């Protein structure tokens, strides 16, 4: 790995400001790293020329001592964010060569702050998946491998391209989205930091919709500090998203004081599921010890409806998806497959344009919303969701944060679980209730499995208290001192 591609965002920022390096040099080093790691299939559309152009503009600003908080930082963007004049497909065939004439609010914020676009990152089709295997553009390969075994592993999903690219040093940081765990689970599988903010913190405008009451954008980075810097740029109140919340965006980096004395950390007992691998239990215990040693108080808490979060999610998310994805009909953009009449044209375009998992979810969603089943499924699931949220509200009367494992296992092999939707869904067992309750959560790399793969711990915060979350994550990151590197990374 070159010195330039191994820089964290905060280190790169210092070197750019001190003129030790230029933004063009940094962009060129990452373009080279993208080429070296092309076999991972993390980037699906490269924007090298645009990157150099943007980097030159950043250098001009930096030379005058100007520039935003991401000035000259090369980033990757999950292909779910619309980027003006740059192809955007949500990794689906149905979007064809769709090239937006507008920019998503999250990415617009980042360009205004000086970030440099390297390209669009692979993901599960419409963010529906936990392994990045449902992408029309093929699976992403995890830069990590098991010890003494070169089996190709999944990077997790749906933000698998984002996580793999950051881990492989092909970009400094990446945008991602999280509907049921799609930022945190791939971060755990790739030894990176993945942060899902409170629902409403980042605007959803211009981001391809999957399940609108759950979707939230956030960063994947290599350090907690970098995630704090990224979120400060990505987050904003936006009148174009009516669920965006009008709360000032703090300078999250200032929250990293290193002091968590007296902070109350809850350990939800329902997360101790049957059959949890011993190494995951041990990692969780280790996390408790780290926080205790730093002066935090540990409390047992109960979230009695945890077990029902995943089944409720698999009603709410497909229902909202079936509604959101109704727009892909071959009329206004994307793939059109002709038929004898317009109804056939719709049905043909959607049959050929959507992959198997997306079709499955649309059908489940259509069924649970159909006449006679709406109350029994969708309304019931939303009632259960109220109970899940109340569990958290009650627990947060006693504690400031909660600590759990991020995933029940380390990364698995490509092809191992793809034939079994339910096994795949269980990947999100520790992350999904956070989305159901709209809370912020972060996964940090905390340990290595017996076969040499990264494992993550998750901290869960109170609504709009990302600062406390970052503060504790930073302390835990220092205690974990995770320095292992993946095998497949840019040299």
């Amino acid at each position, binding site marked *: 790995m070159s010195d330039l591609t191994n820089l964290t965002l905060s280190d790169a920022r210092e070197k750019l400001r001190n003129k030790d390096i230029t933004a063009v040099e940094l962009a060129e080093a990452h373009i080279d790293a993208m080429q070296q790691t092309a076999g991972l299939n993390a980037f699906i559309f490269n924007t090298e020329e645009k990157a150099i152009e943007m980097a030159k503009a950043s250098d001009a600003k930096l030379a005058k001592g100007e520039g935003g908080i991401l000035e000259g930082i090369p980033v990757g963007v999950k292909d779910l964010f619309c980027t003006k004049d740059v192809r955007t497909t949500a990794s689906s065939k149905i979007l064809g060569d769709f090239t937006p004439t507008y920019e998503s609010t999250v990415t617009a914020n980042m360009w205004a702050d000086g970030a440099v676009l390297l390209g669009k990152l692979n993901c599960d089709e419409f963010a529906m998946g936990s392994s990045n295997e449902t992408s029309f553009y093929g699976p992403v390969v995890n830069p990590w491998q098991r010890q003494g075994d070169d089996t190709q592993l999944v990077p997790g999903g749906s933000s698998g391209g984002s996580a793999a690219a950051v881990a492989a040093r092909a970009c400094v940081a990446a945008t991602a989205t999280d509907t049921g765990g799609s930022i945190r689970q791939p971060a755990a599988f790739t030894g990176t930091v993945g942060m899902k903010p409170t629902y409403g913190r980042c605007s959803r405008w211009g981001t391809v919709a999957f399940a609108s*009451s759950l979707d939230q954008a956030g960063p994947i980075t290599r350090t907690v500090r970098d995630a704090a810097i990224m979120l400060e740029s990505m987050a904003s109140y936006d009148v174009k998203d009516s669920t965006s919340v009008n709360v000032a965006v703090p300078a999250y980096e200032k929250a990293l004081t290193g002091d968590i004395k007296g902070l109350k950390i809850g350990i939800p007992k329902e997360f101790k599921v049957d059959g949890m691998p011993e190494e995951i239990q041990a990692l969780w215990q280790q996390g408790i010890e780290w926080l205790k040693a730093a002066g935090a108080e540990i409390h047992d808490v109960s979230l009695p409806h945890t077990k029902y979060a995943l089944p409720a999610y698999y009603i709410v998310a497909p229902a909202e998806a079936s509604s959101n994805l109704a727009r892909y009909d071959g009329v206004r953009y994307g793939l059109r497959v002709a038929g004898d009449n317009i109804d056939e044209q719709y049905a043909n375009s959607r049959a050929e344009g*959507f992959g198997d998992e997306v079709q499955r979810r649309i059908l489940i969603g259509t*069924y649970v919303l159909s006449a006679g089943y709406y109350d029994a499924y969708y309304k019931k699931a939303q009632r259960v969701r109220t109970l899940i949220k109340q569990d958290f509200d009650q627990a947060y009367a006693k504690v400031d944060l909660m600590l759990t494992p991020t995933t029940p296992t380390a990364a698995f092999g490509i092809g191992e679980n793809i034939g079994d939707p339910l096994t795949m869904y269980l990947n999100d067992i520790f992350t999904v209730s956070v989305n159901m309750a709209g809370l912020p959560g972060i996964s940090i790399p905390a340990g290595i499995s017996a076969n040499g793969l990264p494992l993550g711990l998750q901290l869960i915060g109170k609504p709009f208290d990302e600062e406390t979350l970052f503060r504790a994550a930073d302390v835990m990151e220092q205690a974990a001192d995770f320095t292992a590197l993946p095998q497949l990374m840019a040299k």
Partner: protein
Amino acid sequence: MAIDQATVRKVANLARIKVSDEQVANLEGELNLILKFVDQLSEVNTDGVAPLTSAVEMTQPLRADVINDGGYADQIVKNAPASDDGFFLVPKVIE
């Protein structure tokens, strides 16, 4: 609640997704597995519990009822598979 192949066809038609006979057979099995999984929710007593309408407490914002966007039909149709003079073209829908 289990679904049969006729229901799979009906739902696929509602969702405007063309499915082959072979797919219908596979989907019947897959969808029933998922429905069996979500049926766990019937164990939960939700009497008197209101359905969640928003994960985060907020009031719906209001805006002035004015036209403040639009006037760029060329951009709207730019990605259309077929368009003419600012209109989307589709197969004939009225006989």
